[in-house]
């Protein structure tokens, strides 16, 4: 990029180092606080120790300690702000930061994977944003420019993405369409209102995971419940509902229902806070997303970075006739050092079938058969194998063990395989696979299911496994490693597994598109 061009864009392309806005002191202070909290109890221990040791004079410690702590945080924010400088030239970002340990960071445009614009609530009055640059490497290399005007952030994003697309000319279409890209708002493909977010809150897995945990906790508490009732602590309960067993059961049922309702409300609230005013658009081979109630974030994700598409349909989502999508990206493990590092999960909540088709069409234009996908079932031997080896054998061993200890009652464990068999059957039924020779779709689940769509040319490694039993019946299990996640299809017919294996290797060898 020439400097005239840059000047035209209002970008700081000169040799001088630039500072972010003084308002970023708040950002740095918040980050510092985050680090203290993450640093854990070690950092808090002296304060707690002082509190305990102070005895009667505890209030003195609080009166001086809390303002002192606030002062330290404020000074840390100020120093971080004073030491943070950035400049852009030579196709790279240069950052100087660090108070005690000085750091210089260079991030070349072509290494930038995502550009994220966050608008924390405390920046809103100043019209400032935090610009996050995600690199393809580790999260330690990531750059966050907090406290720059929105206009500048948008210019930087445009220039970086344009520049990134240029050098190798690997994505000529992307560059071309970026040139034409209008600076004004793009019409979103998806604009999720509160109604959809409520649906997402109700039907995403989190609430049921919590409910499961709560149920486990409850069943543990059950043993103690009897004691509590006996010991008279439960008098209030019995006073309230009478002493009948039926009434107690009803009370228990109602409290579980109440808890579930509370969890659902919490999940809905969480969904609204995280995804408020969710807008998804597609422009120049990139998905753009903005979302958030308190902290608005704008993320862009180039199509080429998406490794697979996860279409998640837990059973409540099936009832509501929605799917939740996740664009899976390269999954480098986050080191968790930067509290402000944006999440790499690119979720599209509560999508109708029509929109799903549209999104799949955008992501994989050459895949024209989303509606024609007919999943093939895996071999029925999956059921007998799982029941025999994974359930019946351990259950028999356990039954022998417990019956030695407890007598015949221990044999009750032998009922486990019987109780489990419907679930194994459901598991088998949900497994399915389909391919058009260039893409694969694999479904798995139990009551609900999740579908994974991936392009063969993005695969990293393929492994074909065969157990002795599978060899006898010409079956195989195929494990496909994508960058960041792995997909397994158990008990495929051997010739199908080999065909996938061959097709994948062919796609990798012949498809010249970049996988990342």
């Amino acid at each position, binding site marked *: 990029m020439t400097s005239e061009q840059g000047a035209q864009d209002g970008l700081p392309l000169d040799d001088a180092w630039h500072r972010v806005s003084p308002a970023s002191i708040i950002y740095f202070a918040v980050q510092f606080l985050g680090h203290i909290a993450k640093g854990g109890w070690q950092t808090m221990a002296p304060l707690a120790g002082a509190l305990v040791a102070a005895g009667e004079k505890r209030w003195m410690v609080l009166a001086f300690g809390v303002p002192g702590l606030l002062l330290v945080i404020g000074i840390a924010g100020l120093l971080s702000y004073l030491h943070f400088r950035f400049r852009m030239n030579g196709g790279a970002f240069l950052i100087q930061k660090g108070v005690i340990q000085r750091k210089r960071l260079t991030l070349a445009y072509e290494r930038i994977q995502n550009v994220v614009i966050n608008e924390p609530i405390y920046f809103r009055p100043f019209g400032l944003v935090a610009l996050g640059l995600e690199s393809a490497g580790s999260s330690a290399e990531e750059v966050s420019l907090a406290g720059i005007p929105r206009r500048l952030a948008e210019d930087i994003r445009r220039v970086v993405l344009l520049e990134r697309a240029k050098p*190798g000319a*690997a994505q000529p279409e992307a560059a071309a369409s970026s040139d034409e890209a209008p600076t004004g708002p793009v019409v979103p493909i998806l604009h999720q209102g509160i109604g959809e977010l409520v649906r997402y809150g109700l039907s995403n897995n989190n609430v049921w995971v919590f409910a499961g945990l709560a149920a486990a906790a409850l069943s543990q508490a059950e043993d103690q419940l009897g004691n509590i009732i006996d010991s008279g602590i439960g008098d209030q309960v019995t006073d309230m509902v009478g002493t009948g067993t039926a009434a107690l059961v009803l009370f228990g049922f109602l409290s579980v229902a109440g808890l579930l309702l509370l969890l659902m409300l919490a999940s809905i609230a969480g969904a609204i806070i995280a995804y408020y005013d969710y807008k998804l658009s597609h422009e120049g081979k990139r998905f753009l997303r903005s979302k958030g109630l308190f902290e608005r974030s704008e993320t862009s994700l180039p199509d080429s970075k998406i490794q697979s598409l996860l279409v998640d349909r837990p059973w409540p989502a099936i009832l509501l006739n929605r799917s939740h999508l996740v664009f899976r990206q*390269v999954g480098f*493990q986050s080191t968790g050092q930067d509290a402000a590092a944006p999440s790499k999960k690119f979720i599209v909540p509560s999508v109708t079938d029509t929109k799903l088709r549209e999104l799949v069409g955008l992501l994989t234009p050459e895949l024209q058969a989303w509606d024609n996908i007919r999943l093939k079932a895996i071999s029925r031997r999956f059921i007998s194998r799982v029941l025999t080896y994974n359930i019946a054998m351990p259950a028999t061993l356990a039954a022998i063990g417990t019956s030695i200890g407890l007598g015949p009652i221990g044999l009750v464990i032998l009922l486990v395989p019987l109780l489990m068999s419907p679930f194994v059957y459901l598991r088998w039924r949900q497994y399915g696979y389909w391919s058009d020779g260039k893409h694969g779709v694999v479904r798995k689940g139990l009551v609900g299911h999740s579908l994974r769509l991936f392009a063969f040319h993005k*695969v*990293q*490694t*393929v*492994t*074909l*496994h*065969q*157990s*002795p039993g599978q*060899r006898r019946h010409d079956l195989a299990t195929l494990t496909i*490693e*994508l*960058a*960041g996640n*792995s997909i397994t299809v158990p008990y495929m017919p051997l010739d199908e597994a*080999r065909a996938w*294996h*061959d*097709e*994948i*290797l*062919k796609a*990798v*060898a*012949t498809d*010249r598109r*970049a*996988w*990342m």
Partner: protein
Amino acid sequence: MTDTNLGASAGYDNARVAPGDLPTIAALDFTDLAPGYGRMLMALCGAVYVTVSVIVTILYHLSDDAHGQFPLYAPLLGLFVIFADVFVYLHFHHRACGYALRERDLHYKHGVLWQALVSLPFTRVQHVEVERGPIERLFGLATLKFFTAGGGSADMKIPGLLSADATKLRNFVLQQAGADDDDV
């Protein structure tokens, strides 16, 4: 199976990749691991067997109770049976392993009962490690580890290569990976 020699172009000139004509993994021609690998596994197993037997014998003689309970050959026979099985398993194990090289990908098979065939396209190789442990060095062997963007641990590990072969194979893979990157 071909010999373990990776020399010349014998292992490389595998021009089966022709557009439209899909080469199949069912027709791969595997190269055995170096015979030294089998010897190394056997030697290791033998060393462990001897060590355990010696320890058992010493313990037997030190313990006052054991003399009356059972004769020394009972535990030694048990150990022999166990280690004989391991020996037989190892014998088949190293024969079951093998790698195959094509123009664009590398394959490694392993497993006697539970068999697996891993395929790694060269373009996906992020980095390669040649590992030579002290025992491997004794037998002139090396282990090649290939890493992709797929996960943290090595995505393909080929043990029991002659040191020279390992270096050649590594250089070949890196060269192919690089050549492919230039194409893009």
